[in-house]
């Protein structure tokens, strides 16, 4: 009798140790599930109100609208996971969109144009990574400075030139809005990128190290993680994805000038935060960020479809962001409380 009770008593603390991790994983997955549920509810409610909302054209539109933001949000999420932030993404998108357009206008190959945009974006990302890693400067400040500098250099280079639809090869433009029935090519591309980055972060050591370094940079460094290299890689990825987004922006809108992408960084940061990637670093996933991007762009489509004036959009976006981070925090506090009580229970079992 005593043997079995001590055996079960020994099992219990073991379970008390492993279940918190399962609990956290469940909570994280719950977070992305929560956004998915909100998104689904919103879309279904709108469809009921307006039956042409989720037609083939409607779904295609929703996906296309979100694609650009999803790409940039994925890159930004990786940077935020490492505990930093990149505010220069809007300027990078603008510059790369025009660069790709310039190449195409002079008869360049579309694939080459996309490659150029990605390389250019990666280059800017490397510059950010260098300043953050080397100079030990808070990334908020560094990327604020590069936001200004890149935007200004873009203005000087572009001047008042513009890339218009008539200068772009028609194949490129068709790529921008066609697809397989309701799924646009651009959305497929973005999904591939999303899955690739998500898989890398979850299943590769260097990916998981990003989370560690975001949680506690000092501890990560002491544990042997090459902090500077990971941070640099995160910024380069973010810049490269912003560059890709720039090239695709051009395909979608067939227009670029000196003001393209201005102010985009705040939308991207909002998407990432709504998607559950916390600013303190070390938590969240790129899937969450992608869902956050989808949610934010869908709101801008839902409101006009149900007849709500566009005057409300900005206020609603703000409330959504505040709700998202508040709910995250309240849930996290609850979880922490739950873990504490579990730990207390486990301890009392061991002691008693």
């Amino acid at each position, binding site marked *: 009798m005593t043997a079995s009770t001590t055996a079960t008593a020994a099992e219990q603390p073991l379970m008390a140790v492993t279940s918190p991790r399962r609990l956290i994983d469940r909570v994280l997955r719950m977070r992305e599930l929560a956004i998915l549920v909100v998104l689904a509810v919103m879309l279904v409610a709108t469809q009921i109100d307006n039956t042409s909302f989720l037609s083939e054209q409607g779904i295609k539109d929703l996906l296309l609208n979100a694609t650009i933001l999803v790409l940039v949000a994925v890159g930004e999420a990786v940077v935020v996971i490492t505990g930093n*932030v990149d505010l220069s993404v809007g300027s990078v998108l603008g510059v790369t969109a025009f660069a790709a357009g310039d190449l195409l206008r002079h008869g360049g190959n579309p694939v080459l144009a996309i490659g150029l945009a990605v390389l250019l974006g990666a280059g800017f990302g490397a510059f950010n990574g260098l*300043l953050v890693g080397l*100079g*030990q*400067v*808070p990334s*908020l*400040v*560094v990327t*604020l*400075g*590069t*936001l*200004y*500098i890149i*935007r*200004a*250099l873009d*203005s*000087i280079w572009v001047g008042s030139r513009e890339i218009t639809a008539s200068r772009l090869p028609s194949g490129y433009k068709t790529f921008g809005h066609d697809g397989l029935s309701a799924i646009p090519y651009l959305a497929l591309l973005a999904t591939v990128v999303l899955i690739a980055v998500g898989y890398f972060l979850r299943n590769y050591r260097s990916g998981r190290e990003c989370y560690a370094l975001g949680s506690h940079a000092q501890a990560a460094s002491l544990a042997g993680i090459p902090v500077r290299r990971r941070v640099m890689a995160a910024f380069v990825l973010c810049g490269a994805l912003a560059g890709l987004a720039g090239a695709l922006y051009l395909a979608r809108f067939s227009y670029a000038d000196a003001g393209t992408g201005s102010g985009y960084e*705040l939308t991207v*940061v*909002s998407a990432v*935060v709504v998607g559950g990637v*916390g*600013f*303190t670093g070390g938590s969240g996933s790129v899937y969450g960020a992608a869902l956050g991007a989808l949610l934010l762009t869908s709101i801008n489509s839902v409101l006009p479809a149900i007849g709500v004036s566009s*005057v*409300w*959009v*900005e*206020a*609603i*976006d*703000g*409330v959504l*962001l*505040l709700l998202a*981070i*508040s709910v995250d*925090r*309240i849930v996290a*506090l609850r979880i922490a409380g739950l873990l504490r009580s579990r730990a207390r229970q486990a301890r009392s079992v061991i002691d008693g």
Partner: protein
Amino acid sequence: MADSTDTAPATAGAGLRRPALFGTLRWDAVVGALLVVLLGISFSTVDGFGNALNISFLIGNTLPVAAIALPMTMLVASGEIDLSVGSTVGLSGAVMGALWNHGMNINAIIVICALLGLVCGLINALLVTKLGLPSLAVTIGTMALYRGVAQIVLGSNSVTDFPQNYLDFGSGRLGGSFLPTAVLPWLVLAALAVVVLHATGFGRSVFAVGASAEAAWFAGVRVKRVKLSLFVTTGLVSSLTGVFWVLHYASATYSNATGLELSVVAAVLLGGVDFDGGRGTLGGAIAGVFLLGTLQNVMSLADVSAQSQTVVTGVLLTVSVLGPRVARQLLPSTR
């Protein structure tokens, strides 16, 4: 200043008070010196700079940034940030315009706008202190929210017909000199801010919270209360600045002061206020504000294009952030 260093923890790096202040003073002095040099050069070589009218333009246009930079410096010194200030300015102006169109008394409107600013600051404060949310994320959200509400309140209207004596206060000069009338309340505010931050216990606790909120808490500082009062003050100053903005430009629209927050942050950074918290002086921030304002005025007079001006601002910003760190490494006593 001297007595508080005895109680500060003697850790290398971020904690030491006197060497850190010493390092910041050096950067403050640099910014202040740059400002003086720039003024000197401009007065003697730039056409159209050195007259009363232009100086009054310069000061008048820089006043909104100068006013908000005061509480923003304290907020950044405590380790937080508020990006919603531009939207608060805009919302205050929009409410002012909307209430004016409804026939309300101008004095009552100004009081309501001040209260509105307190509320805006309180919302930020509660989300940051009660829920423990990062201020960057919160104020990005409230930035959108307040601007959105301004749009809902005022819509597409543009209100311009405020009473003349108030408009004169907003854009007039003191007896034809180079000082705008509105500089007087600002001077009072600045004096108050300097005294509070650099000569009171509250000010010391602000720096302590910025250096290490946990250590400050253990030392008995009411961290949450300090942050709450700073956010509320920022909201109040922003809404009053919104009233000034409407009177100065004689125009209330929902998009007033879009992007102002970046100018304030840039100026505060330039002035050597450390974003990690715990370091900085108001003198530096004020010098940074006027350095940027003077630079823009001079560059425009010298026909430097708007784009090039942005490059200069960006480079200055980056340099100003690297500068204090480099200074700290170069001066052995700051280790």
